């Protein structure tokens, strides 16, 4: 390749990357930027990509919302243009954050507790019905979630779990576990069978082989499962909308969505809530950053 061709290639790649980044990051940049703007500044034309009068008023409102009661009357008293008002359901935001967190963490832990033994067993133990169970696990992923809403609802209602966090945990497990197991099976299969044999000859039971030898070796796929299960649970909207009715079980997406159907829409407040909602996944991604690429490509290479 000539120097010129190499230069155009690099330039093309760089330009494409920048365009892609802009496309992906622009909405997030606007979300973050506008969360520091007052309602008046948000609607200004042309929009301010950098807040000219930055304010943390929106965030302050989130943390003080439980102190005030918002009704149609009190709302009218405030000045809509200044951003000094909050949606009537604002006080549900922090409890829903906690709910989302509890649900997501429980789902992650249970995914690992179920997925690791399942992945190890299917990959390393030859038992009758092994192939069939792999297909069964995969088949559950073919069914779209929306088709499951009604059966799920009936189950949850009959179990008396409507409007509880347990209803969300149970249904999110049904959605996430098959895929987690699938990721883990692939990763376990990529590790040599002889390691398994060596450990057992060395005196490990099956369980000890898994915990003492394989667990440290499958870390990248564990990270992939943590991220996957956390993100699915964190972002899930449809099932949460069906099963939760009161703030005691509502999750973040539900509460944030409720802000858009309030008396008046406060974009600055919604955007501040949005920033709060993307923080935990971002933190998680930063913690596990060095494993993410390895973990997510596992299924792609082999499987």
């Amino acid at each position: 390749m000539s120097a010129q061709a190499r230069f155009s290639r690099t330039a093309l790649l760089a330009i494409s990357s920048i365009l892609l980044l802009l496309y992906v990051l622009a909405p997030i940049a606007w979300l973050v930027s506008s969360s520091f703007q007052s309602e008046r500044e948000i609607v200004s034309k042309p929009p301010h990509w950098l807040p000219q009068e930055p304010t943390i008023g929106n965030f302050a409102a989130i943390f003080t919302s439980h102190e005030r009661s918002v009704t149609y009357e009190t709302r009218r008293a405030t000045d809509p243009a200044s951003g000094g008002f909050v949606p009537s359901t604002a006080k549900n935001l922090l409890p829903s954050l906690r709910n989302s967190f509890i649900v997501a963490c429980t789902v992650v832990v249970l995914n690992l507790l179920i997925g690791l033994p399942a992945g190890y067993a299917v990959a390393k133990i030859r038992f009758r019905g092994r192939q069939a169970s792999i297909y069964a696990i995969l088949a559950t992923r073919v069914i779209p979630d929306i088709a499951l809403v009604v059966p799920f609802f009936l189950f949850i209602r009959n179990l008396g779990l409507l409007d509880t966090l347990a209803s969300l945990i149970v249904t999110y497990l049904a959605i996430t576990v098959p895929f987690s197991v699938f990721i883990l099976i692939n990763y376990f299969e990529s590790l040599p069978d002889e390691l398994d044999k060596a450990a057992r000859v060395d005196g490990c039971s099956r369980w000890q082989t898994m915990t003492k030898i394989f667990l440290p070796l499958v870390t990248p796929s564990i990270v992939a499962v943590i991220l996957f299960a956390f993100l699915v649970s964190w972002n899930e909207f449809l099932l949460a909308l069906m099963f939760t009715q009161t703030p005691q079980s509502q999750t973040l997406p539900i509460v944030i969505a409720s802000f858009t159907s309030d008396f008046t829409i406060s974009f600055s407040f919604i955007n501040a809530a949005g920033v709060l909602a993307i923080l935990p996944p971002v933190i998680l991604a930063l913690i596990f950053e060095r494993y993410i690429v390895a973990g997510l490509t596992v299924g792609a290479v082999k499987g």
Partner: protein
Amino acid sequence: MTVASISFRGVTKRYAGAVVAVNHLDLEIYDKEFVVLLGPSGCGKSTTLNMIAGLEDITEGELRFDNVIVNAIPAHKRDVAMVFQSYALYPHKSVYENIAFGLRMRRVDRAEIDRRILDAASKLAISHLLQRRPSQLSGGQRQRVALGRAMVRQPAVFLMDEPLSNLDAALRISMRAEIKLLHTAMQTTFIYVTHDQAEALTLADRIVVMSDGVIQQIGSADEIYERPRNIFVASFLGNPQINYLHGTIDAVNGTPLFQCRELRIPLPPTAASYVGREVVLGIRPEDVSPHYDPPGVLSISGKVESVLPVGSDRFLGLRVEDRTIFVRVGKESHYREGERVTLGLTPERLHLFDAKTGVTLRGGGA
């Protein structure tokens, strides 16, 4: 559990899908013996080893350690150690921890672990590597670590599954010698799986030749090599391979004669009972001599097709009737391509097989 002897009684291993890996195996392995399971890949030798280790279930039959049936005893409760072809070192543990792991699992106390590891490490010359990770070692070093991991366990049975196959040729030969020394030093039963006949012949007290999940022959290296029970065993051992000539046995004046087209080779009188049979005559490359005395008694002639010097030796490709046979001649010999030669045969070193069954016909030669 210390083990003196291992015995297979009618052991069959069938995988799902009805693939039979090992078919009705009967085998006795005695205390402190060095047994080599030899055969081509897929012959069931590794499966047999895994069954001893407890890594594979037995479909039918009994496996006994010292007369106690162990079919249902899981691997971690059997007193066996194993060395694998891929070494199977734990990649996240240091060499020291790799070797210590089996002992820690068996709750051997710290000081004893340390003592055994240092001892094994010095015997295997890996003392300077103890703090490294397996990924930082060469193939030969990894193999030593794998050996060390098995040694420190001081197991009753020492299993090896093609432990030298991943090493280069020179290293393989020196490690072979070390394994033999190890057996002498450890005074335990060794069961060794390989497809390499040279390894089997050098190491084994007894060789078990397997094919298609069935034992073809059990015997010492000499027995197997000199008196193969069938064509499979005769072909599997020997390098270059044994030569075969297809023909019939006729009798001329009461003397049995092997006849293949124009070629006639007189056979020992013991072969008289096979007159009229279709047979295969096996001649090992080294069982010919440039001199035959008295002339004409037992000989084979043909045209030299190729001369193949291999350093210490010289082989001739000899055209005999419709096929080429390879024979070993002295390094000093001066045969030339195209030349017609007659070479002497030793009657007791000929092998005669039934053409249909492939089974050795006793008295036909060896």
